[in-house]
């Protein structure tokens, strides 16, 4: 198991490296630069700006520098010059030598003045993550019970209603549900604020818009999984020995039926954080998504790179956790 995790970690580094290379190439293939705005700068200013951010170097060197700043740890003085160029994510003071261990400098933002990628992510990731967690809760709280009810009352009215609603659910993308919710609850009924961010009342609608489709998928998964388990021999045994139906379902069936459901939560969460982009744009929420889209139009290279790497990292880690949890939940599975 330990070897498996280590090997997956190494694979993860490789994947992240390829993602960074790929993003870098595509990003730099797009014409225009961060400083080629409408009112063109005087050539000397431009040259100075490019020199400041190493943009005058050959592309290969720029890439190597970028990756180096992230990957290579530095041992530096305790106080650094206050500049956007040296904002490290990890700063650990080492008392013995009276120096500081610093690691992971994702670079400055070219467009947002005095902001670094690290500071932007620190500001916006919590917003996107809150939205993602909210959506995950919505998905779980609606999806799992709906799936259980549908499976236990198979081919009854409840089953048809639950499955009917779920097929409607998977057909509603956020850009459809978002405006409809905003109109009904924000504008017409005035129960919730139609846009903005801050309080709990701002989270409800976007989280629901984002999580509803996933709750529909979870409901179908739960239903299918529970139906399969209910056909197993050990359920028949449990019933045969006269256990109450409540115990059979609650103790024996559900525990096994939840296996595939639990394992989808990891990737689902990663997906919801990425997907929160859409909800952020629909509801005007200042999360990571808005920054990413504007950073592309602005050619804000470090922000593009940082966001892509962060989300790639989240997706990979989520998948790794699922694989590990799977082994823990189901002893029949073994990784060599």
């Amino acid at each position, binding site marked *: 198991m330990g070897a498996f995790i280590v090997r997956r970690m190494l694979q993860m580094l490789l994947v992240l490296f390829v993602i960074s290379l790929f993003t870098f190439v595509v990003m730099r293939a797009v014409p225009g630069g961060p400083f080629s705005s409408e009112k063109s700068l005087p050539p000397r200013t431009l040259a100075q700006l490019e020199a400041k951010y190493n943009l005058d170097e050959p592309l290969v060197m720029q890439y190597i520098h970028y990756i180096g700043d992230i990957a290579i740890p530095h041992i530096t003085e305790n106080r650094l010059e206050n500049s956007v160029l040296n904002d490290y994510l990890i700063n650990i003071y080492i008392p013995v030598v009276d120096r500081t261990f610093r690691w992971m400098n994702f670079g400055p933002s070219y467009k947002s003045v005095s902001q670094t990628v690290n500071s932007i992510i620190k500001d916006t990731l919590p917003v996107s993550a809150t939205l993602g967690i909210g959506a995950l809760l919505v998905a779980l709280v609606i999806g799992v019970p709906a799936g259980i009810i549908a499976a236990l009352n198979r081919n009854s009215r409840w089953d048809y209603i639950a499955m009917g609603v779920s097929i409607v659910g998977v057909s509603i993308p956020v850009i459809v549900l978002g405006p409809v919710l905003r109109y009904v609850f924000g504008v017409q009924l005035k129960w919730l604020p139609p846009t903005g961010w801050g309080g709990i009342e701002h989270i409800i609608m976007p989280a629901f818009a984002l999580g509803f489709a996933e709750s529909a998928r979870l409901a179908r998964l739960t239903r299918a999984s529970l139906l399969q388990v209910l056909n197993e021999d050990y359920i028949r045994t449990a019933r045969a020995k006269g256990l109450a139906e409540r115990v059979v379902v609650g103790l024996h069936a559900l525990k096994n039926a939840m296996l595939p459901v639990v394992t989808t939560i990891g990737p689902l969460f990663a997906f919801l954080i990425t997907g929160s*982009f859409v909800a952020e744009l629909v509801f005007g929420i200042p999360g990571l998504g808005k920054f990413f889209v504007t950073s592309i139009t602005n050619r804000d290279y470090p922000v593009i790179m940082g966001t892509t790497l962060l989300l790639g990292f989240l997706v990979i880690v989520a998948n790794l956790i699922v694989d590990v949890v799977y082994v823990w939940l189901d002893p029949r599975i073994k990784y060599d």
Partner: protein
Amino acid sequence: MTSNLKRSTAAAAIPGLNAETKPESLWRSSVQRLTRNRSAVVGLAIILLTILVAVFAPQLAPMDYKTQVLSDANTAPRWVTQVFPVMRPADDGGYVKINETYLLGADRLGRDLFSRIIYGTRVSLMVAFVGPLVALIVGLTLGLVSGYVGGWVDNVIMRFTDIMYAFPTLLLVILLMSFFRSSLGNVEPGTFAFQVGELDRASGGMLFIFIGVGLTSWMQTARLTRGQVLFVREQEYITAARAIGSPTWPILTRHILPNILGPIVVAETLTIPRYISFEAFLSFIGLGVNPPTPSWGAMISEGAGAISTYPNQAIFPALALFLVMFSFNFLGDGLRDALDPRMRGIE
């Protein structure tokens, strides 16, 4: 299923009948199962209707989709103001000018919403059909090569697929689209890139959407294809074909491909709603079709800004988008139930 059961028991009971009853072909029983699924039929009907609307859009649309009548901007017929109580008509102390010429109202540039929604079917349906096709071509090719050739080629292709899988798709599409939009938009005439750009402009910006969306969605197809090839490759008829000296290419195209295509096409059908919502999202953030080509995503985006004053401008295209995605989901579900062998015998 019950009717089948009855027939077979009846046939077994009367020995003379047995010879006459033809065994049900896989295809026919699948079609039967599909047509018996009411929701799948409804989905199919709506899709066919939408295709007709898309084809005959110029005949059906009461107005041109790009003509702007600025004096009619943001006007709406009376019934719309009754459906959306926020939109109080001007003659009732509100701000909405009543104009009955537009069935669903006019947008902020004075274009007919209804006509734009009708033309919008074209973009959504094109993406629904061409997007999976691009993914199919890329995924099928890679999967075939990977599965059949095996060895280090297989390893390289599958590792590449893994990496693309880990790529946050949404980000990749946005990146690719911005790359296509801005770098192939202004190249010198005569080059290949310029021709591609021209083709894209001629299609109203749809070409790049096909490529961008297709290029980010082939991974699952490639994996599925490879798995199928690995299975079929070991069958005796492939060994036989190889034994009589058939070269690799005909074996791939004439023996393997026809045998694996079925499940792959079904899997691809199930992903159609994803392509539709992808396009809508891209147009929503302004990386989709070029204005004034009407796309539901772009219309929702424009309307969403005015949701508290003119909700009809966002809600109507949103409903259209929902209806089409809904039908494809219905049909896809029915198809899977009809063709998935594991579903047979249940119910």
